[in-house]
């Protein structure tokens, strides 16, 4: 049996040569493994938020309601680096005030998102952290099945932003399915 398998491999290589590699590229959408054929189950969705996100789009609830049994985790991140700069250059109290202001904003934003999503019968959890808006998301994303990123996430200028640089980089870097909305 081993000889036969090796024989078929040799003959195949002799007949087809490097054409097979070309074929795999041309036909990649048909040459899927069993795992790739199975549609990915979406149970946990992550939505990162920050100070640049100003509103809850109407579409997000309808979009995520497609995943009927999924639970959404909303996470509001306050930039730790900015906090450290303020704390170092002004005072620890100024740093605390910075965080308090951001988290107050974050609480309202999380409230708005939670209200919109629960109206579509989507269960929600919420968190607030002080950290790095890109690295922390990259770190926790593997625990989730889908990452939904607001287009202005971590934008320096949310009023004129189309899609922020961080949103693009996260969409490119994450291994999970990602949508930018």
């Amino acid at each position, binding site marked *: 049996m081993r000889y036969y398998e090796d024989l*078929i491999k040799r*003959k195949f290589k*002799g007949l*087809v040569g490097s054409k097979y590699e070309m074929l795999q590229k041309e036909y990649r959408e*048909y040459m899927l493994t069993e795992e790739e054929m199975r549609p990915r189950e979406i149970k946990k969705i992550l939505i990162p938020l920050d100070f640049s996100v100003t509103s809850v789009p109407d579409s997000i609830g309808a979009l995520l309601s497609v995943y009927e049994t999924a639970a959404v985790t909303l996470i509001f991140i306050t930039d730790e680096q900015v906090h450290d700069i303020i704390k170092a250059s002004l005072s620890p109290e100024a740093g605390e005030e910075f965080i308090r202001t951001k988290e107050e904003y974050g609480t309202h934003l999380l409230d708005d998102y939670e209200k919109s999503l629960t109206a579509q019968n989507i269960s929600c959890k919420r968190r607030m952290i002080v950290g790095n808006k890109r690295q922390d998301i990259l770190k926790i994303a593997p625990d989730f099945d889908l990452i939904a990123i607001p287009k202005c996430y971590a934008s320096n200028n949310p009023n004129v932003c189309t899609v922020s640089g961080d949103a693009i980089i996260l969409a490119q870097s994450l291994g999970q399915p990602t949508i930018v909305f």
Partner: protein
Amino acid sequence: MLTIIQLITLVVFIATYILIIDERIHRAVAAMAGAAVVVFLGIVPWDSVLTHIDFGTIFLLMGMMIIINIARQSGLFESIAIRTAKMANGSPIMVLILFSVVTAVVSAFLDNVTTVLLLTPMLLYITKLMNLNPVPFLMAEILSSNIGGAATLIGDPPNIMIASSAGLTFNEFITIMGPIALVDMVIIIIFFLVIYGRSMKVTKEEQKVIAKTINSLDEKGAITDPKLFKKSVVVILLVVALFFIHSSIGVYLNVIFPFVDPALTLEPAEVALIGAAILLIWSRVQPEEIFEKIEWTALFFFAGLFVIVGALVNTGIIEMISLYMIDMVSTPFEAMFIITWFSAIASAIVDNIPLTAALIPLIHDMSATMDVYPLWWALSLGACMGGNGTAIAASANVVVLGVAAREGISISFMEFLKVGMVVLVITVAVGFVMLCAMFGML
């Protein structure tokens, strides 16, 4: 009693064929090495090397390779595969039937290896969607490719070699081998439905889901270059039309161009090269791209084989065998019977191309004492249908099994043999009876 030269020639011949079967050395290299030995020893004098190489076969293959390489770039094969899948409407039985028929028809006019290489991934994808065992579908595809290839002059390399050597025309193949291939295809499809039909049942709901997924595939999107696609289809149809009239093209041309000799004929190789030239000019593809994709290894393989077989002719070994055969047979029926079954069984072991190369000069030699016209068809039948016997009997078999193996699907030698040998016996037996009927031997 064999002379030293004859012994050496036989040893080189057998050694080369063993190397070809084993393929530890590439088949083209093995054939060239064998040819080099017989030329080096003067068994085939240098100035007669070119007379032994059948350039009709080589240029026909080359021309068709150029046409197919250009047509491939347009997404033609992928589009055919998607359309075929959609026509099945989610029914596994219809997938089996349609893919078998399409494989047979395409293999009849285009190269078997390319046909199955480009249809197999789609077939595997559909069997995964249907959640069914892909093995029956793959086996049906292999057998259909070999049977379909038997139907025409250009469908299978053995037919190309036989036609070129014996001067047979495209229309002769259509009228003699075409009906045999058609009947054998029907038999094989019924065979597969009887054996595997039950395991291919899906519920109506499952069928709907399968059909929905397949219908989301876009056969027009698969066409990467619509202009090239149209040009390829036009040229392929033109080439097929020219094949139909190649032996009497002078008659048709004389009507439009009175200066053309009505007796003018075109060799099949000329048709293929003309078609290739037209498509190269019309498509404006970079010729280097196309020429480097010509399977030069296959062409050198053929050339090497012809020289080695030429050595068998030059040393009189072929003549000895043909005299022995003529002594053995007393009627054309017996000769046909022996050629048919010997070539079928031997093709199953050796690979039909080297076998055909060896038997062609044998039949030529026999023509001195008997009418060998039916024997060409016996050889075509045996060599083409014999390709179904084992996993290594024909190139299409190896390609499908190789693609499947790379996708994690294994068909063992015995698994193939059980089905392949039954199909070989049925198709050859039916074909033999039909040949006998055609030649008034029943």
